[in-house]
């Protein structure tokens, strides 16, 4: 792990202007993310975490300030990152197989080479046997896994995940968290993970960034020095986890109390 900043956010402001309202989503955000970091953004709903993610991906532009990715300003869509959205974005008209190989098609990887990679990726996320199924035939958790596979397959330099496990039940979430960590342990891809679940943030990441309610500012940044590899199923029972949780929750709780739901 080098000490280079992969992503630099400086003095970032984001306004949303519409016919009836002006909304300041993010205010004065300053952030550094290094190569191989697993960073979590936590904060109440509407605090701009997703917006920040969008801007790192280049889907939206800041109103003031800038974002640098590996030294270059992000002025257009950032194709060097992978983006896993909150809501299902896998294509309902494609099979699991076809969905997973989407990126390879776009990057024009020759057909012969695709098959093997796709097969490996599908087994990595545990969907063997469902290659020819359509999303409408899959459960929510399985669709999430397809989304994961689809993004990981082209080995993006960094991964942006927007509440990827939000809509799933606790057991499934733990399983997928475990898989995510397994993958991260192997690849050490820089990850930015947005979640409203503080426990999840602490369990997975090595740095937690707490945002205030709207307008979103960074309230607190905390290194998570729990050693790896981590066992997501048991980590919540460790003392270290508990202590960190208490500490950060204190900060987070104030924001939640300000009227935004968690």
């Amino acid at each position, binding site marked *: 792990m080098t000490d280079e900043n992969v992503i630099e956010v400086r*003095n970032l*402001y984001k*306004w949303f*202007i*519409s*016919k009836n309202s*002006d909304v*300041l989503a993010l*205010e*004065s955000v300053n952030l550094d993310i290094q190569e191989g970091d697993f960073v979590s953004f936590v904060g109440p709903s509407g605090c701009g975490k997703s917006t920040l993610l969008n801007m790192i991906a280049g889907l939206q532009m800041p*109103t*003031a*300030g800038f974002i640098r990715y590996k030294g270059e300003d992000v002025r257009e869509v950032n194709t060097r990152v992978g983006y896993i959205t909150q809501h299902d974005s896998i294509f309902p008209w494609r099979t699991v197989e076809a969905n997973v190989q989407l990126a390879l098609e776009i990057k024009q990887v020759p057909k012969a080479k695709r098959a093997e990679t796709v097969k490996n990726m599908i087994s990595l996320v545990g969907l063997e046997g469902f290659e020819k199924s359509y999303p409408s035939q899959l459960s929510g958790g399985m669709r999430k896994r397809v989304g994961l596979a689809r993004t990981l397959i082209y080995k993006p330099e960094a991964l942006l995940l927007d509440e990827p496990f939000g809509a799933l039940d606790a057991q499934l979430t733990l399983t997928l968290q475990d898989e995510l960590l397994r993958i991260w342990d192997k690849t050490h891809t820089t990850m930015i993970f947005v979640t409203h679940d503080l426990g999840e943030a602490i369990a997975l990441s090595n740095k937690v960034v707490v945002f205030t309610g709207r307008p979103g500012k960074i309230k607190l940044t905390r290194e998570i020095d729990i050693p790896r590899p981590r066992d997501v199923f048991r980590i919540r029972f460790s003392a270290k986890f508990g202590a960190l949780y208490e500490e950060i929750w204190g900060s987070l709780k104030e924001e939640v109390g300000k009227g935004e739901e968690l």
Partner: protein
Amino acid sequence: MDNQNFDPLDPGRLRQEFRRQIKFHRNLVIFLRIGVGISLLGLWELVSRYLIDPFWISRPMHIITRLWDWYVTGFFFPHLGATMLEIGVGFFIGLALAIMASLLLGTRKELAQVLDPFMMAIWSVPGIVLGPLFILYFGIGFTAKIVLVAVTVFFLIFFNTFNGIREVDQEWIDVLHIMGAKQRSIFIKVILPASALWIFSSFKNAIPYSLVAAVVGELIASQRGIGYLIQDASGVMDTTGVFAALFNLMLVGLFLNEVVEQAEKRILHWRTSRQ
């Protein structure tokens, strides 16, 4: 953002910019609309002068002249009246019959079930195809067209309402039964309001279709009406006349659409407060 006077906490400048963009866009659209209209007419005019004989495609100037002629001499209005009469009378007759029939049949569940496939079969035949039959029966006067419109409207409204009433939640009716309500009050409290909704929503479709039915009837055989004007002009290869009549037809169509939309707004206004 590289000028330093910009205070990132003040949205004022951004708002100004936003407003400016909206205004610009709006004006651009208006400009384009007018531009497109003028260019198309101009192009038409040019093509008809130098490329294609106006026999085939007429010419804006000719059409405008013809329209002017029609309006000023009053030639057009009896024909407009004829078509509107056919639509109006036919629509109301069809509506009345549809309401009666659906209330009568919709409540008798067994009768409805028995008649179901027949309804489907009749539904598959579009009323307008019966045009020649009605003209055979009633001649080429108003009656045939009125019947044609009435039949078209009837099937549209009846079919929708009939099915709608049948689907009125049996639960509601059962609940009322348990409460001791008599058949009559069930009818008034549940069936009538439900059917009113269905009837109105099929209105929206029925009105454009009545125009189609009236015009088709006139195209097949008539002596009056906008459809007659189209057919008559076509018979003597008078392209200008055809376009002029089509233009008027377009106006009538737009007018009817507007009427429906306005009516819907009124009724919906009542509905949203109810919901």
